[in-house]
């Protein structure tokens, strides 16, 4: 999607790519370098310097973007991140930065937001309930007792939570949907690291065992978070789709090269229609994935009235197309793709997980119907 970037965006992307190549190439992803706290902190700090976590924050709060459309800038960075399966809660931190900018208290904006933007701290969004269709706000209930608020329940699929990580928790109370900003190290919040199909990132389950939070932990007003959650969900959808498109693009290139190089029956296998036509179809789906993701980023970032719908459409389309593409690449690689040392499985794992993250294709299709008043 480089050809879609403006000159200013290209500067941002080039710097970002250099950073990733130096600090976290695929070999380091394989080693799970990001699970080391010191490494992760340094990664975040440098990413913060590049502006990765400031793009959805208005200038008067210290943020900024290069094109006037922060969602589009972030999506282009996400696309580059996806190509080398970068770890770290990029989507989460940006979603939380957006939420604090939009609805955070003065304290949250002044104390937490700058730390997120600089990469000093990270943030992740605890949204998915452990069971059921990802009806986003389920899983954790909030009860107000005196000046404190008590959270109980569980969220899962929370990405890259570490000791310095703030959690934005979307929960239900009698008043409706509310959100809470939970500081790292809060008592009765138990983070359980899980193993995962996707080995490029770390997912956790977070248990809220009657965790007490001060009222100041509320983001926005109690029970009024519905619209903000919808917007956060759209941002997460677009950024996840963009990361997927990056991963698709890279995997497609690997596979294309293999189809040209691999010889069987005295010919390169890419000369057989069975392979050639499959690659042509995959290329079409990849181009459509790029087109719909960019369209969604443009629409959501410019508040043109169709952003929520477009975001859900992009997530649904790319979710399915990404898994299809990874499966087809696997088929073309054949036996060699079954080996641990080959990279294809890293992409298959990532794209399959991305499809489910922040709402799977079926969920976003249903959401599109609801947004369209069907």
């Amino acid at each position, binding site marked *: 999607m480089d050809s879609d970037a403006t000159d200013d965006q290209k500067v941002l992307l080039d710097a970002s790519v250099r950073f990733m190549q130096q600090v976290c190439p695929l070999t380091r992803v394989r080693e799970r370098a990001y699970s080391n706290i010191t490494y992760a902190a340094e990664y975040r700090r440098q990413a913060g310097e590049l502006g990765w976590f400031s793009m959805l924050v208005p200038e008067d709060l210290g943020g900024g973007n290069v094109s006037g459309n922060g969602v589009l800038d972030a999506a282009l960075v996400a696309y580059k991140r996806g190509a080398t399966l970068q770890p770290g809660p990029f989507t989460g931190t940006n979603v939380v930065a957006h939420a604090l900018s939009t609805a955070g208290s003065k304290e949250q904006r002044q104390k937490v937001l700058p730390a997120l933007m600089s990469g000093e701290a990270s943030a992740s969004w605890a949204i998915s309930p452990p069971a059921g269709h990802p009806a986003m706000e389920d899983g954790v209930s909030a009860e107000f007792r005196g000046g404190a608020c008590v959270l109980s329940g569980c969220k899962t699929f929370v990405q890259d939570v570490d000791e310095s990580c703030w959690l934005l928790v979307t929960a239900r109370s009698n008043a409706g949907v509310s959100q809470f900003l939970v500081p790292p190290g809060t008592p009765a919040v138990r983070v359980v690291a899980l193993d995962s199909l996707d080995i490029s990132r770390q997912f956790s389950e977070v248990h809220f065992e009657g965790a007490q939070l001060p009222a100041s932990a509320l983001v926005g007003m109690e029970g009024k978070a519905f619209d903000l959650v919808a917007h956060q969900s759209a941002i997460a959808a677009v950024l996840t789709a963009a990361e997927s498109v990056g991963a698709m693009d890279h995997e497609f290139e690997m596979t294309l090269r293999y189809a040209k190089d691999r010889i069987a029956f005295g010919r390169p296998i890419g000369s057989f229609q069975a392979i050639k036509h499959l690659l042509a179809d995959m290329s*079409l789906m990849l181009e*459509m994935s790029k087109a719909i993701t960019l369209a969604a980023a443009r629409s959501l970032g410019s508040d043109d009235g169709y952003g929520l719908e477009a975001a859900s459409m992009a997530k649904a389309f790319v979710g399915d197309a990404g898994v299809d593409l990874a499966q087809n690449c696997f088929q073309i690689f054949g036996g060699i793709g079954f080996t641990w040392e080959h990279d294809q499985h890293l992409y298959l794992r990532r794209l399959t997980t991305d499809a489910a993250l922040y709402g799977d294709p079926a969920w976003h299709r249903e959401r599109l119907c609801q947004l369209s008043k069907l």
Partner: protein
Amino acid sequence: MSIVEALSEGMRKMETDVTDLEEFRKEVRAWLAANLKRRRYSGPQAARTETKTPEEIAESRALQRKLFDAGYAGISFPKEYGGRGLSAAHERVFREESAGYVMPDFGAAGAVTFSAIARSMLAHASPSFLRRHMPKILSGEEIWCQFYSEPAAGSDLAGIRTRATRDGDRWILNGSKIWSTGAYYADFAMCLARTDWDVPKHRGLTWFAVSTKAEGLTIRPIVQIDGEAGFCQEFLDDVVVSSDEVIGEVNQGWAVAQTMLVYERGAGQAGPVVLEPRTLAPDLVALARKVGRSNDPVVRQSIARAHINDYAQYHLGKRIAARLRASDQPQPAVAAYGKLASGTFSPIRARIAVEIGGPEALLWHPDDKRGMRYAVNYLNGRMTSIAAGTNEMQRNGIGERVLGLPREPSFDSNRPFSEVIANARNWDGRVS
């Protein structure tokens, strides 16, 4: 100078001749609002080749004349041939602005006349030919069609067997053509014939302008599976054509065909003419409501899928257009993405309607012609996956020309065509 270079030079030349585009946009906007009727988005237009009545054609001719008189036909065509001599960017502005209006509709033949045929002529025909025909084309007086495909030459576009024999300063044509869209109301046809059989297939072809009233020419409508007859089949029996009416060089017909292909695939348009789909598949929603299934989660998934595909296809089209605009050269293989997308998703979409509607889509009262629209869409759902280049041909093009994959073995590109025909039946796949 190759055709591709000639074309791109032409495009660049026109682009440089810039007047104030925004000024032009205002002018166009005002004229359209004052003179044409609006249309609205009601779901994607299904491909269909409908029979056109003489009245409909006459109406479209009048509307085309209106555009021509106002200077909006052939905006980027040279003035000496009846155009306005403005740039491709102006043409684009007009297309963007007019997307919401009812425009002349000559059916599929119209699209062919104004994009592929007129533009290929501009690139290849002689000045005297262009002065003779082009103003009539732009004003709607001459509608053209193609005599291109043959019963034995479909995907294999260069496998033409219609024979043209030179006879002094005229040519005698014999053979058979098929899938000529709108030939029954066209005034002229651009006809491809083989003029040399002893060279490989691409090197012995020539284009001719044939009047649809020519003696020895029989035009017969083909009844389609939807009962319409928008296509025709032709039989050429000693049809005489003057040498003046050869388009491009003799035996260089493949070069013209390549140009035509570029424009047919939309490289000459460089901009989507459809509206952005921002309403959830209205046709499917209406159908689901009618049969009381709009709350069925499985149906809702299908409706959403259809709309998402529409939306992705629209933005793919925009993306392709932008890429083509940014490029110095026409890129037919890039345009093939749009064709393949349509060929892939149109049949799926037509099928979704039938699945949602059930009996409501499959059955209708004999006197309710609107009731049959889902069935007709369904039957025509494969139009874009077959007509003007099958999905398989698009995949070959994308695979080899965009992705750079090694070629399919070719058994017919280096041998005399007469020999290829003779050998094909004995083909056994063995390569010595």
